[in-house]
């Protein structure tokens, strides 16, 4: 059973930075995209993800699978569908605005001038179509027209929609204090439930508002009636005050600007808190759900070895680690993320014993060590040296009948070996491969290979691993 740890030992300072950083990133994304349809789709996807979790818990296999598939491609969907919105947010704002600025809602649009102008247009039965975009970019939803960027004034609006003006049939786009575009063509709504009194202008207004967060003011040329379209909603305007009120609401201008700022600040603070809580929840679910055990074998790395010392043997080359952590984290552990290292800076010549502990183990964040095997490791450390060692032929078999092996001359008779000084001290003879004496003739010469034991001792450079043996056989004197 895994013991429950106090919070102070569970959370490291790196974890706090991790949480704060990600919460801030999430918060910044909210600040940049709030009010756009991206946020609505993200919320929808979050709902899908939750739904998938619930479906999975309930054992709804197909539903869970489908939801999982949708959630998996969600990022792709967002990028493809909302590429323009994302581009606008990132292009329109400078680095400061992206990283820590708080863009306030547009309060520059002169509502009074607009209200007066619309009333004047209505009184004169001059048809008009005025677009006041929200947060979303409408460039892809409108067509044609002429860019202008002129300051708003009642006279200019009246003149644009004057019957003789070549652009009077199109719509004007108002952004801030300026009329940015005139004579713009809007898509027509395909709704069947619209009243018969609504003409092309009304359909055009709804065609845009149904697909964006823009507000459109329509002045009927026939009746002089004013309507306001937003989303699927159509509001008949009979009073300038109502128009002013709706315009202010759309533009985010409160009755009291201080109150509005306060409310916006509160909204941002709440969003920040939600972001923080979301990241904390995600962090805990990913890093502290110690529900999965995994056993991996990791090779031991030896560090800080003295330059003149070499490692000539270890009791184990791999350590078996029993790791626990959240399933997703445990599953994705890469071999290079887990390290077992032993500091050899204090190692002396001979056999060194090391008691392994968590200090020797390097794990990725969120993964904990349960236990390991072995916990004691011995490392033989020695200086590399060389030694000339005599060679001896390992004779085997039986000599030819009545014969004896009288003498043999080895060339070379010694060989220089390199290896651990202690190991070399213990080696007094290098033997050849077994040589069957029964296959030898009365006298002669043969070549044979050397057997290297222990394997860690090596023949020095320039020395051959074969020797020549010249031998003499004589008749054996019967005893």
């Amino acid at each position, binding site marked *: 059973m895994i013991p429950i740890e106090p919070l102070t030992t569970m959370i490291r300072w790196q974890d706090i930075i991790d949480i704060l950083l990600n919460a801030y990133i999430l918060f910044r994304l909210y600040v940049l995209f709030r009010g756009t349809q991206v946020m609505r789709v993200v919320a929808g996807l979050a709902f899908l993800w939750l739904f998938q979790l619930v479906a999975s818990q309930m054992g709804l296999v197909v539903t869970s699978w489908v939801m999982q598939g949708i959630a998996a491609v969600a990022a792709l969907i967002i990028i493809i569908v909302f590429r323009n919105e994302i581009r606008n947010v990132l292009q329109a704002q400078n680095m400061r605005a992206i990283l820590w600025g708080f863009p306030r809602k547009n309060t520059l649009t002169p509502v009074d001038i607009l209200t007066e102008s619309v009333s004047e247009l209505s009184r004169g039965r001059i048809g008009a179509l005025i677009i006041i975009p929200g947060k979303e970019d409408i460039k892809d939803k409108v067509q044609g027209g002429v860019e202008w960027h002129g300051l708003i004034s009642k006279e200019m609006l009246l003149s644009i929609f004057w019957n003789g003006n070549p652009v009077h049939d199109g719509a004007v786009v108002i952004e801030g204090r300026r009329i940015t575009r005139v004579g713009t063509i809007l898509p027509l709504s395909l709704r069947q439930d619209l009243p018969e009194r609504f003409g092309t202008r009304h359909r055009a207004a709804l065609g845009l508002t149904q697909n964006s967060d823009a507000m459109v003011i329509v002045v009927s040329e026939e009746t002089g009636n004013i309507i306001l379209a937003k989303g699927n909603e159509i509001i008949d305007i009979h009073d300038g005050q109502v128009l002013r009120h709706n315009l202010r609401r759309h533009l985010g201008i409160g009755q009291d600007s201080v109150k509005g700022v306060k409310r916006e600040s509160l909204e941002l603070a709440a969003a920040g808190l939600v972001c923080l809580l979301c990241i904390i929840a995600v962090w805990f679910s990913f890093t502290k759900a110690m529900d999965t055990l995994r056993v991996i074998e990791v090779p031991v790395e030896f560090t800080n070895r003295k330059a003149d010392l070499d490692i000539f043997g270890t009791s184990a080359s791999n350590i078996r680690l029993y790791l626990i952590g959240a399933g997703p984290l445990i599953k994705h552990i890469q071999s290079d993320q887990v390290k077992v290292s032993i500091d050899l800076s204090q190692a002396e010549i001979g056999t060194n014993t090391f008691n392994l502990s968590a200090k020797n183990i390097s794990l990725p964040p969120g993964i904990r060590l349960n236990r390991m095997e072995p916990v004691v490791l011995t490392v033989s450390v020695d200086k590399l040296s060389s030694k000339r060692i*005599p060679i*001896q*032929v*390992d*004779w*085997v*078999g*039986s*000599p030819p009948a009545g014969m*004896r*092996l*009288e*003498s*043999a001359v080895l060339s070379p008779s010694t060989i220089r070996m390199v290896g651990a000084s202690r190991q070399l001290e213990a*080696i*007094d*003879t290098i*033997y050849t491969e077994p040589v069957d*004496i029964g296959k030898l003739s009365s006298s002669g010469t043969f070549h044979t290979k050397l057997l290297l034991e222990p394997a860690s001792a090596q023949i020095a450079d320039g020395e051959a691993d074969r020797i020549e043996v010249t*031998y003499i056989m*004589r008749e*054996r*004197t019967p*005893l």
Partner: protein
Amino acid sequence: MYFRLVCTGILLLAVMGTFSSGFAQNPQKQVLSLEQAVVCEDIEDFRPVNPGLAFSIENGSIICFTRFAVISRETFIWHRWYRKGELVAEKQLVLKPPQWSTYSLIQLREFDKGPWRIDIVDANDQVLTTLRFSVIE
């Protein structure tokens, strides 16, 4: 008078020199002249029989024979027998002036097959020579 003093002085120096060299010399340390060292199957008339490098286990025993030419005073040597590098027998043998031959013998057992060596070591633990051979089938 001067002649007597000089002669006495020379005599004293000679005596002191003799004493000092006598004290400085280690009584154990004498140079041994190893004339013959072989491993053989038997010894007959103080001579090794069938010396060689490979001996059948069926012989039952093997002998290390050593002959020294010049021995100034009584001393001893060691025959150290190693099987595959492991010391299995160590025999101290006395050497007497002026010449001496001596040997050591070991009985062979089935598991004694393999490479052997014998270190011939003097009283000062100096290896005089090493004999290498194999015990075969």
